[in-house]
């Protein structure tokens, strides 16, 4: 069933790809209708042609085999229904928001995010897991149409993907297997357990926009409401949740990771609560609410190891719907003339990261460039070689010049060689 839904999402997206700029809203409405039809068929189980698990052999080397796999697990099917409901709400919002210039493109991104969810939830090996996780980053990048928000998002997304990438590379190096089913064995052996756990935690926290990593999440406040809600509820934070649930075995092997996760989740809840009360911008309040919800979900997953994300996503459609309604009511109160312009608070986190990481890197880079490249290699090594060549050439020129000292020197060298060779011949 999930395979069929996956294929339908792709087909709907592809069908409207060549549509031009004219009547974009009408096309978006058509996309919404088609998605609704797919959702109804999926929920009722009618017209299901592809209902079994699907497997495509992607890498088939002797020592490494990877598959693209779409599951038919009932728990994941159930979770997908909630995601699908949230998708429909967001697509409706794409259509109704008059500030959304590219409703059709926004719909297509929502559909792709739906595909990414199915792909991530179905993952059975690292390759598919990482690919799906990166898909979330790429679609998130496409979704955000504000330069500053996009900038922050991609830097955090890249760092988190690299962290997960490195952690799973360690697991593969040690176990020789990319199957998620082999993670308990890795955790049991305890190879580099703190390193891998902390890397995964970094990736997950960064994706969920938790405390210390909230910068990129809060930058979404400058987007239009439909994109803001898609980014907050359906994009990277949701992937963070699924990733944690799939990789939590590795995190639990380390003694530090769970306490860190709990502390940061509690801090995130506190920070979001304070922000919710103090921040005067409505978009920011919606984001604080979303951040709080994801922090609670992560805390719950951290407190109860047997909990699964499928139970968490139940509240996804309600949350999206309620936030959208809250926004509509608030806009109505503000006469609905225009979305208020964002008042930019001071970006302390950016300043901290800039001071702690970027500036030292720049300084070291500058020193290396000037000291090693220019002074050591250009001036010392190449300069010395160049001077030596000049010296040798001028010496040779002098020796070959038509002067008595040069003649005397060459004659002395020749005599010396003669004596040496004769000596060698005579004395053996």
């Amino acid at each position, binding site marked *: 069933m999930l395979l069929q839904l996956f294929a339908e999402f792709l087909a709907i997206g592809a069908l409207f790809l060549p549509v031009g700029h004219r009547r974009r809203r009408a096309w978006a409405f058509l996309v919404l209708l088609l998605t609704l039809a797919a959702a109804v068929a999926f929920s009722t189980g009618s017209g299901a042609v592809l209902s079994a698990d699907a497997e495509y052999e992607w890498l088939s080397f002797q020592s490494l085999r990877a598959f693209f796999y779409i599951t038919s697990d009932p728990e994941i099917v159930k979770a997908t229904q909630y995601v699908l409901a949230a998708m429909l709400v967001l697509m409706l919002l794409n259509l109704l928001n008059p500030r959304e210039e590219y409703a059709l493109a926004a719909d297509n991104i929502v559909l792709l995010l739906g595909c990414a969810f199915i792909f991530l939830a179905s993952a059975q090996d690292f390759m598919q897991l990482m690919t799906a996780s990166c898909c979330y980053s790429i679609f998130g990048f496409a979704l955000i149409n504000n330069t500053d928000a996009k900038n922050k998002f*991609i830097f955090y997304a890249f760092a988190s993907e690299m962290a997960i990438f490195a952690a799973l590379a360690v697991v593969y190096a040690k176990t020789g297997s990319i199957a998620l089913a082999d993670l308990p064995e890795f955790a049991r052996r305890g190879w580099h357990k703190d390193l891998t756990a902390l890397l995964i935690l970094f990736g997950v926290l960064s994706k969920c926009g938790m405390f210390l990593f909230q910068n990129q999440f809060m930058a979404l406040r400058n987007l239009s409401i439909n994109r803001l809600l898609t980014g907050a509820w359906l994009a990277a934070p949701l992937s963070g949740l699924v990733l944690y649930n799939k990789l939590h075995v590795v995190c639990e092997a380390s003694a530090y990771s769970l306490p860190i996760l709990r502390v940061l989740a509690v801090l995130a809840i506190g920070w979001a609560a304070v922000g919710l009360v103090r921040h005067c911008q409505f978009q920011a309040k919606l984001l604080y609410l979303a951040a709080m919800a994801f922090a609670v979900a992560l805390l719950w997953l951290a407190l109860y190891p047997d909990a699964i994300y499928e139970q968490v996503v139940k509240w996804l459609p309600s949350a999206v719907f309620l936030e959208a309604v809250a926004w509509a009511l608030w806009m109505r109160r503000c006469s609905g003339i225009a979305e208020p312009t964002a008042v930019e608070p001071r970006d302390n986190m950016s300043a901290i990261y800039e001071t702690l990481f970027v500036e030292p890197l720049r300084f070291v880079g500058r020193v290396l460039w000037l000291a090693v490249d220019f002074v050591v290699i250009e001036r010392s090594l190449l300069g010395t070689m160049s001077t030596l060549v000049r010296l040798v050439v001028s010496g040779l020129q002098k020796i070959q010049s038509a002067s008595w000292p040069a003649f005397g020197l060459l004659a002395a060298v020749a005599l010396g060689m003669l004596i040496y060779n004769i000596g060698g011949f005579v004395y053996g």
Partner: protein
Amino acid sequence: MVSPVFLLPLIVALPLFGALFVLTARDTGVVRGRNAFNVCIFTVISNVILLWRVFMVLNEKDRNLQLLQKFDWLSTPDINLVFGVDTFSLLLILALHLAILIGLVGVRANTERQMPLMVFALLFLSMSTGLFVAADIFSFYIFFEAMLLPLFMILGMFGGVKRQGMLQRFFLYNFIGALLLFVATMLIYYQFGSISLEEVRRTAFAGRSGVYIWTAVGLSFISRIPIWPFHYWISSINSAIRNPLAFIIMSFMPLTALYGFTRFLPDGFWDMGSFYIGIINIVGVITMLFIALIGFINRETQYKIFAYATVYNIMYLLGIFTGDDLIVYNIGYALFGFMIIISALEVLSAYIKQRELEADTSARGFLCRARRLSAVYSFMIIAAVGFPVSAVFVNNFLILARLLGTNVKIGALLVCTLVIAGMTLLQELFRLKADNNTCRLGKSDDISRSMFGFMLFVAFILLMSFVKPLWFVVG
């Protein structure tokens, strides 16, 4: 259809014939290099079709050299030209052709020295293809050195104001490298005769002569890779070249050395030479970090691309030194994607630079207005930083896993380097995307529809290389 037996000599010879045609093309008056350009494009596309034919007759699972063909040259000493390919070398040849095709699209509007550039580009293509199909030590040596001539000429033409110094460095390093490889080739020849590259790998060179041979081979190859202390000459050349095609051609220098290592390193080297491999790993990772940091602070886009390319070249070198067949095999796929990414990035960056110069303004914020350019540039950067949209992704994972498994500290440093190299490119992307009202470049400066279509095709090739590297091989 051409017989498979003649395919290899034909793909080496065709660019050579193309160069002759270009030489005879009319280049004055209204045509101003168009004829030369068209002949060059036609030659490269024809060769790509021939390459596709070679792929069709090749057994991709067979790791040995196939379609072997020998051309007698000298009887005393017994020196012949021997050709043969496997999937690895064929992928590199295809990457070379596609990269040059992308470079040609990048210089299509140039009128300055178009004809000589086309001639030397085709000569380079022929010699490099010869290098990748060479199946014995002498054939390898001949093409390894012959490809330097067009490079030298291209550098002389497009090396910028500092070209004299660059040419000196180019000559000095390559002359020493050539001398060392010549000595090694002679030593191998006098011990074993004119042997095939596959036999070189299987031969155990014991004793002092073995040390001499591998030191000479190693130094001659490594001098072409921007690893410390050889990085400076290559970096000074790559950052000064002001022509996208010339830059792309120069970027193949390290690749020839990487290829040389895969062909020459003996099978038992990973056990015997673990000490040297350890040293190369340490020096390699430090150089990567060093260059990535310099790329991070450098304002020149070209240097940033060079820094990124260097980080990846050294990573592939470390991958080859793992001795893992799976990794080496995958490096072929990864290099295919990697070279296409570098070429596309360079062409797009050169286009932006050109617009900048013409409008006498900064390109900061240009991508906000140029939607087509923004789309393809963003895609290429996303592919470059290692997201799963090209074959580079899987290979990064394999190399990283291997290095993290062997030495976690070196692996961690490698991760940091990849992050810095990726951040450098992202930084550049957001410089071009930043809101800037003073930027005078607008919608009209965007890339043309045809160029956009071509770049989408390139993106499609990259995506397919991720899904299935040999997707174009039917059956």
